[in-house]
């Protein structure tokens, strides 16, 4: 973990070393930071109000006034994308938070308790893995309503299996290590043991799958938007801005092009960062 914390107080010289040593991860970290900052400071960065309708500038191509052009209502796409970044990233973060919570708990209990408990939990995991989860997400969103909360919750509820398996495997392998047995011998309680000794040791892979999970959730939300079941307009999300441009794509390519690029670049950034972290934590690669 120490290496990670150091990332946050790196000086320029350290940055160059980081960029040289793992260029892809550096690019990923850069993309993630920039997109996050843009999302956080959207109200200050955005040149226009994202909801401001202006009939005088309908479907204008990209120009200096409107960096990414305007849509059918004359709204500035660049501004909408900045606000959309907040929504799309929020979906990613909350969904991953939920899936981490479930995955961590189930995986920890299964790996720590072993035996029958482990069997039952892993059976449940297998069952959800066999579900065409996108069907399930679709059905739930269609039956309830496509509100942002429902979308976050259902994506979270259908994506915890990887984390559960991973935590279980980590816990199983740590369970019989000497330091754990020593702690057990000293009478440390199960909950404290998991929290204090097992979890920190499993943190690396968990972090990796959380970072990759955010990327996955952003993509799922955009897929739902494509089917009209994502975050609903007028609230902008990258997915729904892209889809709103679909019908006019032959005369106004920019409406769909830029949000798609934003999704691509952001997901790419998270994936690069995640893979970089994976290499960083993988003892096999530390030669």
């Amino acid at each position, binding site marked *: 973990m120490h290496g990670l914390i150091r990332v946050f107080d790196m000086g320029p010289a350290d940055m160059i070393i980081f960029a040289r040593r793992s260029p892809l991860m550096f690019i990923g970290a850069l993309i993630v930071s920039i997109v996050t900052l843009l999302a956080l400071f959207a109200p200050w960065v955005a040149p226009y109000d994202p909801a401001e309708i202006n009939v005088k500038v309908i479907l204008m191509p990209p120009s200096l006034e409107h960096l990414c052009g305007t849509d059918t209502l004359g709204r500035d796409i660049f501004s909408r994308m900045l606000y959309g970044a907040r929504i799309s990233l929020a979906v990613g973060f909350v969904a991953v938070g939920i899936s981490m919570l479930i995955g961590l708990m189930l995986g920890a209990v299964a790996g720590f308790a072993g035996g029958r408990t482990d069997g039952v939990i892993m059976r449940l995991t297998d069952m959800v893995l*066999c*579900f*065409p989860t996108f069907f399930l997400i679709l*059905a739930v969103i269609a039956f309830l309503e496509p509100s942002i909360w429902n979308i976050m919750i259902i994506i979270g509820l259908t994506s915890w299996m990887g984390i559960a398996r991973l935590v279980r495997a980590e816990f199983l392998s740590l369970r019989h290590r000497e330091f754990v047995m020593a702690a057990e011998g000293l009478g440390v309680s199960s909950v404290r043991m998991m929290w204090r000794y097992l979890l920190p040791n499993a943190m690396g892979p968990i972090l990796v799958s959380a970072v990759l999970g955010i990327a996955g959730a952003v993509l799922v939300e955009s897929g739902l938007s*494509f089917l009209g079941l994502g975050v609903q307009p007028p609230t902008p999300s990258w997915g729904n801005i892209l889809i709103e441009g679909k019908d006019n794509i032959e005369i106004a390519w920019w409406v769909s092009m830029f949000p798609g690029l934003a999704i691509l670049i952001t997901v790419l950034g998270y994936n690069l960062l995640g893979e970089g972290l994976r290499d960083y934590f993988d003892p096999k690669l530390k030669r």
Partner: protein
Amino acid sequence: MIHYLLKRLVGMIPLLLGITIVSFGIMHLAPGEPAVTGQEFNPKVSSQDIERLRAYYGLDKPLHEQYWDWLKRLATLDFGQSFSADGRSVLDKIAERLPVTLWVNMLAMLVIICVAVPIGIASAVRRDSWFDKGMTIFVFIGFAIPSFWLGLLLMIALGSNLQWLPISGLHDYNWQQMGFWEQQLDLLKHLILPVSISAIGGLAGMSRFMRSGMLDVIHADYITTARAMGVAEGSIRYRLALKNALLPIITLLGLSIPGLIGGSVIVEQLFSLPGMGLLFFDAVMARDYPVVMGITVIGAVLTLLGNLIADLSYAWADPRIRHGAG
């Protein structure tokens, strides 16, 4: 072997039951009613009519009874009747749509294997070369690209602007007049874009996986031994290493089935293909319960069977398992 097969098939039953109970529960507990009965605001339909309709479809019974009735009918392979206006049997509707989805997904898998395996091998053998680096970038982009967006762009570029490929449906309007081979060619043309879009994500994942599998194997002791014994490099790569690196691919293919089936909703919607994914989407929107349940069951069975076949081929391909288990 037969014993193992039976055990696995029996083991599927609780999984299937679990999946159907969850789906059934979610569907019926959600607020709202199917289109046929949700007509409170239609002045021509009295509340007695609605009650009669609900009774006709068995929607007035308690949930567990409805599920039990559904399950009993399922045991005789009766998936019930669709709630939609045509009222056809669910099995017919699915049977008509399933081939399209299966074809697109199987072709996509074929493309994935045929392209990803050579790419993965080449990247591993020439590790850190320009080819390897280029492929790494391709893989990351393949993972990150929203497939429908790429599909949309390709439709515009190759379909509308260049007019090289058809962009929707399975057949040209004058399909009836074509000769046999012309028809096949037409079908193939219509399938190029959907299959490519279905394959893109898996392609990236599989080539990455193949690369790391191959790298693992190349550094294994028995390869070093073979090299020390003077076995030719080509023979080491393609006879010894490749065989072992291919094994995990089988499992990965099995695991990728739910993703492909789920993704077919988007691909079929994008290219207006009359497949199972589109049927599911329409059924969900109209709350056509029997169709939704039918597709869920078929989708789950396909996934479970796919995993089983993957495990069996794995056992068949790996002599350690083949001889060890007996």
